[in-house]
């Protein structure tokens, strides 16, 4: 009756988000007087699987099946449902990532399981089972009761601290009765972005808006980002103008991110932009306009010209790193 947690891997490696998810599942399981079992699908080495045990997973089930080498939503949903059934899991946890969003709702409909998606705290109570989730694009949080026998949760990214424990995990080979002919998704080609830090993974983000005045002024933003090990982002008008790639557009209809630190340079803070960054732990704003709405969302601010302020920040970071 353990809590089942689906931990995605990327080319056989887990990320920080996988370990946060396990930490969350372990604490949720404790609330239910049970343990957490991690499920991995794909070719993942034992040394990598073992890492899930560092965050408290009691059992790690690894399914290696060539039919599951590409993400076919129906096949993955079946594999997870089959495992949940064998483990008699009453709670199944996934990340609210692209993959989690693809699989969790299918799983919920299949298992007739109530689902709380994008939860950002441990369940508020177990009787009734109540979760806390973001609604109205960050303008409110809901207390949602899940009444079904089996419950599914997807965890909002970067919302739970890692919790390391003693590693007592047992690793098991799992199986999925997936027929290769049942795989309906065909991948014709893949384009991978290499080298840069992924915006959705980044702990620190430096972002520029129309206040930067021209794409030629992005040098200092990139330099600051590089020094901080940060990803770069931008507001919608900037990507619409073609100054920066659409990959960088952060906002309601762009990427929704929750880094530890978001530095907004020359961004006014329109509602749609804030909807993309409101879950950031800290927001810093640099803007010439003291009345810019971004300052209402920011914890730290500098009223000033980005082109004058950024060089000062860059040298201060270089100093700090010495």
């Amino acid at each position, binding site marked *: 009756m353990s809590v089942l947690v689906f931990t995605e891997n990327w080319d056989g490696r887990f990320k920080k988000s996988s370990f946060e998810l396990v930490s969350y599942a372990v604490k949720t399981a404790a609330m239910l007087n049970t343990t957490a079992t991690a499920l991995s699908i794909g070719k993942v080495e034992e040394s990598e699987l073992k890492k899930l045990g560092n965050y408290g997973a009691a059992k790690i089930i690894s399914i290696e099946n060539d039919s599951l080498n590409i993400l076919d939503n129906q096949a993955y949903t079946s594999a997870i449902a089959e495992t949940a059934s064998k483990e008699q899991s009453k709670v199944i946890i996934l990340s609210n990532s692209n993959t989690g969003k693809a699989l969790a709702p299918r799983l919920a409909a299949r298992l007739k399981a109530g689902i709380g998606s994008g939860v950002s705290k441990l369940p508020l109570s177990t009787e009734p089972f109540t979760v806390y989730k973001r609604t109205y694009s960050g303008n409110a949080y809901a*207390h949602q009761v899940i009444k079904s026998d089996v419950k599914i949760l997807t965890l909002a990214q970067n919302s739970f601290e890692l919790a390391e424990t003693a590693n007592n995990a047992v690793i098991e080979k799992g199986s999925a009765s997936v027929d290769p002919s049942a795989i309906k998704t065909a991948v014709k080609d893949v*384009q991978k972005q290499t080298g840069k830090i992924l915006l959705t993974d980044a702990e620190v983000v430096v972002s520029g808006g129309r206040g930067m005045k021209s794409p030629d002024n992005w040098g200092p933003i990139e330099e600051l980002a590089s020094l901080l090990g940060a990803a770069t982002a931008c507001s919608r008008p900037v990507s619409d103008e073609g100054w920066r790639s659409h990959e960088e557009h952060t906002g309601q209809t762009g990427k929704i991110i929750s880094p530890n630190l978001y530095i907004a340079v020359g961004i006014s803070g329109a509602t749609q932009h804030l909807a993309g960054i409101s879950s950031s732990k800290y927001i810093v704003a640099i803007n010439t306009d003291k009345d810019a709405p971004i300052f209402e969302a920011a914890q730290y601010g500098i009223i000033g010209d980005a082109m004058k302020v950024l060089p000062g920040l860059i040298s201060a970071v270089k100093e700090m790193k010495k």
Partner: protein
Amino acid sequence: MKILVCISNVPDTTTKIKFLEGNTKLDTAGIQWVINPWDELSLTRALELKDDASAGVKGVTVAHVGGPASEPTIRKALAIGADDAIRINAEADDAYFVASQLAAAVKKENFDMILCGIESSDFNGSLVGGMLAELLGIPSVSAVSGIKIENGVPVLTREIDGGRETVTVPAPFVAIVQKGIAKEPRIAAMRGIMMARTKPIRVYEAEPCDKFTEIVSFEKPVARAACKFIDAENPKQLIELLQNEAKVI
């Protein structure tokens, strides 16, 4: 090829969100209701495909779960260019309810491609599209940022972490779409608005459905501390605060 676009009705982005009855119900006074932004972009893409004769799109239908008060939103979708609409007559409850009602209606008709926005701006669930596909027993592709039709075959662009894939699945299927699907939402022209008045809206009654979740209350986010301003002449101080106080660098 027939395309169905599922649309939901949400408060306009600039609405000040407030609650009544001990924080259990949204205060709808003065709210401007709009088509959920992602659904609007999906509808725009569907219409772009229909405009392209080589794509072979015969019609674009919109479907919505909502009471009679939702009709203006449905008429907006028709004004933008949808050919007809389905309204399932029920107040939208949780995602499973909405998906179940949509599934029941879809089973009465025949669609090759069903488009759902990745999430609605009110509940941010990211659930209806996936649930609908599962209830219909058909494939789904999520994080879809592009749809083309090549020789009558839909070809989808799926976003993955750090990249994208070009994907095909056999019809009928559900595409759960997000940013990139269309550049900007299409706007209704005067002629469209007039024609919308006579386009058909089929109304189906709701079917009984299990209720697995319930929102019992809302809370407003904790007000964050007011912004601490650092002198523009002393940016070093900001770095010190980020390092020593916030501890994020």
